[in-house]
C-alpha cells in the first residue's frame, strides 16, 4: 500500500511537471522537447556569410514550418550564405545554442526566442565578439542597441485587415459567430481585438464568441449548437484555418450554404495551402495571414540592399479574398502542402 502511494505520488509529480511544462511554453507543441542538433549546410563556399539561426522547431505549427523553410531557402549556399540552425522550444537550450554559435564565430545571429527574457548576457557577448544580431518573429526584452533590427508581425494589424475587409463587403447586417484560438496567445489577442471593437460600436452583432482553443472538432460543436438554437448568423470568423474547417463541416451537415455565393461568409487565418484552395473553389470567403516570411527582409538588410529606418520592422501582412485569389498566390504564400 505504501509502495502504491509512493508510485502515485511520483506519478502526480511527473504529471504536474509535464503539465507545468505545457503551461509555460506559449507553443502548443510542448510535447516536443526534442531539440534538433545544429547542422551546417554542405560545402560552405569560402567567403560565405556565416549565419546562425536560433528558432523554434518546425513541428510547432504550420507557421513555424514555413518560417524554417523560408530561412533555409533564403540563407542558402547559392545565395552566398553558410547556415547553421538550432531548433528548440526551450529558452535555456536556445541560449546555449546562441552562445555556441558566437563561439564558433558566425557573422550574424538570427533569433526567434522561446521566451522574451534572459537574453541580455548572450547578446552582450555577441556584441563583444562582433556578431550582429537580428530578431525575427518575436521580440526580446533587451536594450535596442543590442540588436540591429527586429522583423516582427503586428498581430493587431492582421485582425484589422480582416475586419476592414469584412466591413467592405457591405452586408445588410453582420451576425457573427466568433471562434477564438487559445485565449491569451498573441494570435488570438490580435485577431480578436479588431472584431471586439466592431461588437462594441454596434456595427456587428455578436451571436456567439467562444474559444475552441485551436481545436477543429470543438469549433464544429460550437457552430452546431448555434444552428440547433435556431439563431440567425451570416458570418463565421474563425481565428485559424482548422477551426474554420470545423465550422464549415457543421454548416455542410445542416445544409447551410457558405462561401462566395452562399448565405454565410467564412473567414479563416493562417493561409494554409488547403485553405487557400477552399477560397479558390469559392467555398470560403477570406483568409488572413500572419506572414512567416522574414528571411528576405533580413537578407536584404545584411547585404546592404536596404537599410532599416527603424529598429522594429513590421512585416507586411496579407489577406486573400476568394474573388481575387489566384493559383499563383496559393503557390507563393500558402503554408504546408
Amino acid at each position: 500500500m505504501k509502495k502504491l502511494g509512493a508510485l502515485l505520488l511520483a506519478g502526480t509529480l511527473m504529471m504536474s511537471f509535464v503539465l507545468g511544462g505545457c503551461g509555460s511554453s506559449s507553443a502548443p507543441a510542448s510535447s516536443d522537447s526534442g531539440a534538433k542538433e545544429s547542422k551546417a549546410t554542405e560545402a560552405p563556399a569560402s567567403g560565405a556569410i556565416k549565419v546562425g539561426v536560433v528558432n523554434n522547431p518546425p513541428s510547432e505549427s504550420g507557421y513555424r514550418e514555413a518560417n524554417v523553410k523560408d530561412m533555409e531557402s533564403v540563407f542558402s549556399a547559392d545565395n552566398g550564405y553558410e547556415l547553421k540552425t538550432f531548433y528548440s522550444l526551450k529558452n535555456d537550450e536556445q541560449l546555449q545554442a546562441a552562445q555556441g554559435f558566437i563561439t564558433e564565430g558566425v557573422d550574424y545571429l538570427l533569433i526567434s526566442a522561446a521566451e522574451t527574457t534572459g537574453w541580455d548576457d548572450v547578446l552582450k557577448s555577441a556584441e563583444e565578439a562582433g556578431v550582429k544580431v537580428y530578431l525575427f518573429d518575436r521580440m526580446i526584452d533587451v536594450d535596442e542597441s543590442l540588436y540591429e533590427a527586429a522583423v516582427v508581425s503586428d498581430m493587431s494589424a492582421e485582425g484589422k485587415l480582416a475586419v476592414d475587409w469584412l466591413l467592405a463587403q457591405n452586408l445588410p447586417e453582420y451576425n457573427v459567430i466568433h471562434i477564438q484560438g487559445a485565449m491569451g496567445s498573441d494570435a488570438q489577442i490580435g485577431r480578436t481585438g479588431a472584431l471586439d471593437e466592431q461588437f462594441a460600436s454596434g456595427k456587428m452583432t455578436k451571436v456567439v464568441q467562444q474559444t475552441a482553443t485551436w481545436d477543429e472538432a470543438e469549433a464544429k460543436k460550437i457552430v452546431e449548437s448555434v444552428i440547433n438554437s435556431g439563431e440567425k448568423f451570416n458570418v463565421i470568423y474563425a481565428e485559424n484555418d482548422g477551426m474554420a474547417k470545423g465550422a464549415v463541416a457543421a454548416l455542410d451537415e445542416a445544409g447551410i450554404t457558405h462561401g462566395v455565393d452562399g448565405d454565410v461568409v467564412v473567414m479563416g487565418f493562417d493561409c494554409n495551402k488547403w485553405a487557400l484552395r477552399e477560397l479558390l473553389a469559392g467555398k470560403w470567403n477570406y483568409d488572413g495571414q500572419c506572414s512567416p516570411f522574414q528571411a528576405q527582409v533580413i537578407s536584404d538588410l545584411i547585404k546592404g540592399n536596404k537599410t532599416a529606418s527603424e529598429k522594429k520592422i513590421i512585416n507586411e501582412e496579407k489577406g486573400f479574398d476568394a474573388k481575387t485569389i489566384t493559383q499563383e498566390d496559393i503557390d507563393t504564400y500558402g503554408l504546408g502542402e
Partner: protein
Amino acid sequence: MKKKSKSIFQGGLGQLTIPVIAIALLVLFNLIRDPSFFSIGITHNNDGNAVLAGNLISIVNSASELAVLAMGMTLVTAACGGQDISVGAAAAIAGSTFVKVLKSGGSISGLTVLAAFLMACVVAMLFGTFNGTLVAVFKIQPMIATLILYTCGRSIAYWINGGATPTVSSPILTGIGSFIPGIPIPTPVIIVVVVAVIFRLVFHFTSLELFTQSVGINGSAARLNGINVTGIKLLSFIILGLCVAVAGCIGVCRLGLINHETLLLDVEMDTILAVAIGGNSLGGGKFRISGSIIGAYVIQMLTITLYAMKVSSTDVKAYKAIVIIILVVIGSPVVKSRFEKMMRQRQERKVPVTAKGAK
C-alpha cells in the same frame, strides 16, 4: 411506487444507478430550461441528403469517439486497476498513420480507406502492446507506463506526416465522418453501435469478461486458477489500441484533416471520467461497458448543454468539473452506504406508523 424506488437505490440498476440518474437529471434540467433543446428535425445537408439534426443528434454524434475509447478503457481499468492516459496521443498517431496511407496512394478508393484503417489498427495495437508490456510484464503502474506515450505521442504523430495539418478529402471519408447518402443517422453513431455489438458478442462467446474481472479482483487467485494474468492484461491494452484506432479514424474523417496537436485533445481525462461515471471501479474488478457508454454521453450532453446556454467555453471546464464532483461524490461508497442506511431507518420508522394507521 415506494417499492420501486427502494429497489433502485438498493441495487435495482446496480452500478448503472449513477449514470442513469445523471442523464435523467440533465434531461430534466434541459426540459425546464428550454424544451426545444430536444427537438429533432430533418434537414437537407449540402450534399442533398435528408439527415437528422438537433441537439440530441449532436450529443450522440460528437460523443462517438469518447464512447468507443471508453469501452476499451473500461476493459483496461477492470483488468489492470489503472488507466491508460495516452489514448489521445495514440489516437493522433493512429490518425496520422491513416492519413499517411491515404496520401501515399494516388486516388482514394474504398480499398485504400480499408488499407489505411487496417494500418492504423496495426500501429495502434503495437503502441497498445508497448503500454501493455510495461504494465503486464514489467508491472509498472498503468498511469506511469502510459505517461511515456502521453508525453511523446503527439511528436511521433507529427513525424509520421511531417506537416502541421495534412488534409485528405474524398466522398468516402465524408461518408464515414458525417453521413452516408440515404442514411439519416450520423455514421459515427452507427460505428459506436457496431463496436458495442462486437464487444457484446466477444463477451458472449468467450470468457474474456469473466477472466478480466477475476484478474482485476484478485490477480494471484486468478493465476492460481490457471488464468494467464499477463496475457489478459496485455490483451486489454491491445483491444484498447483497436478502439483508439477507430476513434482516431473517426476524428480524421469528420474534418478530412489531421492536426496532431488538437485531434482528440484531453480526451484521456474525459475517457477516464466516462468510465468512472459509468459506475465502474477505477481500482479494477467488476465492470459494465454499458455504464461507460452512458458515461460518455453524460459528459457530452453536459458540454452541449453548456454551449446551448452560451456559457463561455473557457468556463465550460469549470462547470463540468462541478457537476462531475457532485456525480462522483454521490457515487462514492461512503455516500452510498450512508444513503442506504438512511433509507433503511426511514423504512423502519414508517412501518409502525402505517401499522397504527391501519388499526
